[in-house]
């Protein structure tokens, strides 16, 4: 942690861990990212759900999906490349079997909405948004789009807006658009998502990656291009959060990508995130969120700050150059 001597009032106040995303309140600033606590089924007892601000579900399609062939994952330097495909029990089975496991312990749930067509996004969202315990939706935009020859939804800005807008118009709970990092103009697309009705932005989705097994002349995952997560993508995610937050200071942003320690989480909050999500870190340490939550409070105490929101926008920048984000 940071040197407490540099703080401006070390230990004077007792900071809170609660965060308020323009009315959407979480008891903790640390959430579980989509795909890292499955759908709620079989979440092992060693994961302390009470210490998570919320759980974002594994992305849900309307019908059950088997996902892709194995191998589905490859370890890469400081990263995890995963290509599981959309395996999930389908939104109906999720609501009857898995959601109660989360609501029983009282952890808020954010439903991750996926689909292979605009219609499927709408059907999944309309099943989720009125369920007790579902406090928000997050639109997953990396699905192959059957209406566009399987190109990812995020490939065209107008398609992103169409999907995000449709979900946002029907939903009674706040809708976050989960943006992939490699968009031509991330800030402009974030702005348009908000105009289309998105309540907030989740930045960022996994980065497309490829791992090769040269010995066997083959790709290390059965489906070659996977999503790279873990510390390897942290600077990419931070840059995205920083850019979007600077352009849209009033829009709640959930920062995600490679957060593995309290210092990482604080960096995202300083860069402009309102809350953070843990993904790969939970896979390697099922109590990472407890330690990170504690570390954030320690940092706040050492700086004499009273809540994670006090960090937002505190990042000092020495020089800004016109045209350079």
């Amino acid at each position, binding site marked *: 942690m940071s040197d407490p001597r540099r703080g401006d009032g070390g230990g004077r106040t007792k900071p809170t861990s609660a965060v308020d995303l323009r009315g959407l309140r979480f008891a903790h600033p640390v959430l579980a990212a989509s795909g890292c606590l499955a759908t709620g089924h079989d*979440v092992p007892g060693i994961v302390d759900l009470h210490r998570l601000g919320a759980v974002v579900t594994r992305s849900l399609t309307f019908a059950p999906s*088997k996902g892709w062939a194995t191998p589905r994952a490859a370890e890469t330097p400081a990263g995890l490349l995963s290509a599981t495909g959309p395996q999930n029990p389908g939104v109906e089975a999720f609501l009857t079997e898995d959601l109660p496991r989360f609501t029983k312990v009282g952890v808020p749930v954010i439903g991750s909405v996926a689909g292979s067509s605009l219609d499927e996004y709408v059907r999944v969202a309309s099943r989720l948004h009125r369920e007790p315990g579902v406090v928000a939706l997050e639109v997953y935009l990396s699905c192959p789009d059957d209406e566009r020859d399987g190109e990812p939804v995020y490939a065209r800005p107008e398609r992103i807006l169409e999907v995000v807008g449709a979900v946002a118009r029907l939903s009674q709970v706040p809708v976050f658009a989960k943006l992939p990092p490699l968009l031509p103009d991330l800030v402009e697309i974030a702005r348009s998502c908000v105009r289309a009705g998105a309540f907030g932005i989740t930045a960022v989705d996994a980065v497309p990656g490829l791992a090769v097994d040269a010995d066997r002349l083959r790709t290390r995952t059965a489906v070659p291009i996977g999503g790279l997560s873990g510390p390897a993508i942290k600077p990419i995610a931070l840059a995205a959060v920083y850019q979007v937050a600077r352009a849209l200071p009033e829009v709640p942003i959930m920062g995600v990508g490679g957060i593995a320690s309290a210092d990482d989480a604080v960096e995202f909050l300083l860069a402009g995130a309102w809350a953070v999500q843990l993904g790969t870190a939970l*896979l390697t340490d099922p109590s990472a969120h407890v330690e990170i939550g504690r570390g954030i409070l320690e940092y706040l105490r050492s700086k004499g700050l009273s809540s994670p929101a006090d960090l937002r926008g505190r990042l000092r920048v020495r020089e800004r150059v016109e045209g350079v984000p």
Partner: protein
Amino acid sequence: MKRARAEVLNTRRFGAYHALTLVAPEVAERVRPGQFVSIAMPRGRTFLLRRQFSIHQASRRGGWAGTLEFVFDPRGPGTGWLAELKPHQFLDVIGPLGKAFAYPAKLSTCLLVSEDHGAAPIYFLAQELRARGKRVDMLLGAETQERVFKPIEGKRLSQTIVITTGDGSLGERGDVLDALPQIVESTGTQVIYAAARRSTLRRLAEFCFERGIPSQVAVEEEMACGIGLCFTCTVPVIRKDGSGYDHLRACVDGPVFNPARILWDRWMGEQPAMVPTPPEGFPAVRAWPG
């Protein structure tokens, strides 16, 4: 499933393999053959993911009570790091994980097939079967003598054993399944258990299916988390009612499966035809990715 900070008690070499003994009473007292533990890697390295290892021994009584042992091939960054550990260092351990081998209620003549350090969980199973009054025979295979895991232990635990090496440096020269029809015939095998390469398991599955011999195999599939969260270690398994198949997680619904229900064609579909696949390394739940 428990999570523990476990002290390394002992580290040993067996031929090409390493074995670590940990003090983890809360895991050791629950574990059954076929189950595995998940070990966290050190922070600040570029390899992040936990590694999974089948249990070789768990001692509940005596001077070693509360300890468990696992075996690995130290060829990757993670297993290489584990091989360098010294006694009294600590590891973050989660276990026991996965479904164990089931013991037969009535049938009593068991054949245990293993390759490389797949033998580690198989010896654990052999002990438990013998303690239940079952007859144990073994087929033990590896490429070379130094990759045959504890052959003397195998002999001690079995009524009959056939050891095979690819280069003939120990036992017969050939493949672990070469002696399969003969040993099944001569011992009157009623149940088969196995922990071996995927291609071996598949041939064994076909044999068991033809002969109508019930069997269980411990599979290896690449696991990112080992505790059911990530959905990377799935195996296509045919539903009991035959209405289709599901991708089941090897870490939660396995690693022990009924081979007759594995959809082998689909599971092995990604194997390339153009180059021979080198041995992938074991145990049943492999130290992955090394």
